């Protein structure tokens, strides 16, 4: 299995770049879990919807996905806020098992909606920079993935500042661990839940815009990413934001290296080996609180 070192380096670097965007997908999942204590089964469907939104922005309106990323994030924040405030929250009546069913139902509706509108064809957009590469020492890095890495880093920093510097961010962290105390200081818990859900969906919208130049869109595409995101969340620790980003990088490298050694079609096997290994060895994940 002797690959020259620069090939291995290139695989590791490209893995890191892809992994960052995986981490962004996982970020929304882990944030919602950490604050609302629910697993959002609609995460994949919402990612699909976001990718179609970016697709339509490009094909119908001619807007580059990187330009569309921020407006889409705003749009999906509002969408996520509304879904939690008007659908998931009221329908669940505070019972976690109801929430699972509601988000599952939501994912079925969204997926079928996408299927009805866009048919089951796989689509992709045509941007001039899709195949562009950047030289980094001996390695060639994909330009769209480099952008994805940088944007994810920016989102991570923005989220960190939001969580530590703003009243809303502190309220989110407070609600995550102590709902009663939060309500008593005057925090509107339902509002904070919806804001958190909205941030999670906004992350998805940005991830969608970053993925679109190098991935196909189909009505079920989100699920593939979310399966990886689940692994990342488990690896990083359920509810840990830092864990999601670091876990994303690790998983990106694992996928890239196992793709190199086992071939593209088996590349994801490495991810699921990690998944099982983490559950066996360290079920709380890298950054998870001990139970």
């Amino acid at each position, binding site marked *: 299995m002797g690959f020259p070192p620069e090939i291995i380096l290139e695989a590791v670097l490209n893995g890191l770049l892809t992994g960052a965007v995986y981490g962004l997908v996982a970020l929304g999942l882990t944030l919602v879990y950490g604050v609302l204590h629910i697993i959002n089964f609609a995460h994949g469907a919402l990612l699909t919807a976001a990718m179609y939104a970016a697709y339509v922005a490009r094909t119908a309106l001619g807007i580059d996905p990187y330009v569309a990323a921020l407006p889409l994030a705003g749009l999906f924040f509002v969408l996520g806020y509304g879904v939690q405030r008007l659908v998931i929250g009221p329908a669940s009546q505070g019972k976690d098992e109801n929430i699972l069913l509601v988000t599952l139902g939501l994912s079925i509706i969204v997926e079928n909606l996408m299927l009805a509108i866009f048919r089951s064809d796989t689509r992709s957009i045509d941007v001039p920079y899709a195949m562009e590469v950047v030289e980094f020492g001996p390695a060639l890095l994909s330009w769209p993935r480099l952008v994805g890495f940088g944007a994810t880093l920016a989102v991570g920093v923005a989220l960190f500042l939001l969580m530590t510097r703003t*009243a809303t961010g*502190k*309220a989110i*962290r*407070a609600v*995550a*661990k*102590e709902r*009663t*105390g*939060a*309500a*008593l*200081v*005057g*925090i*509107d818990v339902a509002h904070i839940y919806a804001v958190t859900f909205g941030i999670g969906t906004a992350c998805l919208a940005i991830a969608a815009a970053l993925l679109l130049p190098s991935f196909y869109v189909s009505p079920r595409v989100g699920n593939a990413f979310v399966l990886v995101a689940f692994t990342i969340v488990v690896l990083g620790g359920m509810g840990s934001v830092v864990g999601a980003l670091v876990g994303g990088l690790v998983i990106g490298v694992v996928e890239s290296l196992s793709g190199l050694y086992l071939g593209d079609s088996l590349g994801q096997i490495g991810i699921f080996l990690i998944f099982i290994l983490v559950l066996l060895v360290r079920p709380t994940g890298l950054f998870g609180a001990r139970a």
Partner: protein
Amino acid sequence: MLEIRGLEAGYGLTTVLRGVDLSVPAGRIVAVLGANGAGKTTLNMAISGLVKPRAGSITFDGRRIDGLPPPAIAEAGLVHVPEGRKIFPNLTVRENLDLGAYRRARGNRARNMDRVFATFPRLKERARQFAGTLSGGEQQMLAIGRGLMAEPRLLILDEPSLGLSPLLVEEMFALIRRLHDEGLAIMLVEQNVAQSLDLADEAHVLENGAFVLGGAAADVRADPHLQRAYLGL
């Protein structure tokens, strides 16, 4: 200032409060006493909007507050320091205090934080520490400090001396007296019956979800039923 009439509340199928009447006048300390499970905490929760009343009325400053969501009640200045502290363990001491002013008195946050730190120097030393790593007594100080950050008009304290060493219990009662001297109205729920009666203007005894005894603290102290059941005399 706080007027409760015919309040009924409970959880699911169980009824806990069966027709509670209580008033807390401005500037007074009113003690609510009662055995475990009598419904004291449920009463506090119903006042702050965390448990929905099933019947009766709660009026604060002449305004009906029953049925309002907790943030609206907190915003009106009715501040509840709950049993079990309910501080934010994953936030620092300073952030916990910041959030005390989330809904009220935001503009005075810096000044009020200085006052809380002056009252509890221990909290100042630990301002950057995560609240979850504080000792039980320090957590109780933080819970009260967080409540004071909102500039309460009426402060509900649910068993503030629970789990404190005798010395700290003394300090806690001294603090409550000082807050009272500054003119704050306080509703004090306590298991320390004798000390609470010393401190309070009025006292009421809750049994099985209804008040069985109430009036001036001195009269309540002299009541034979109270002496037998709560003071072991």
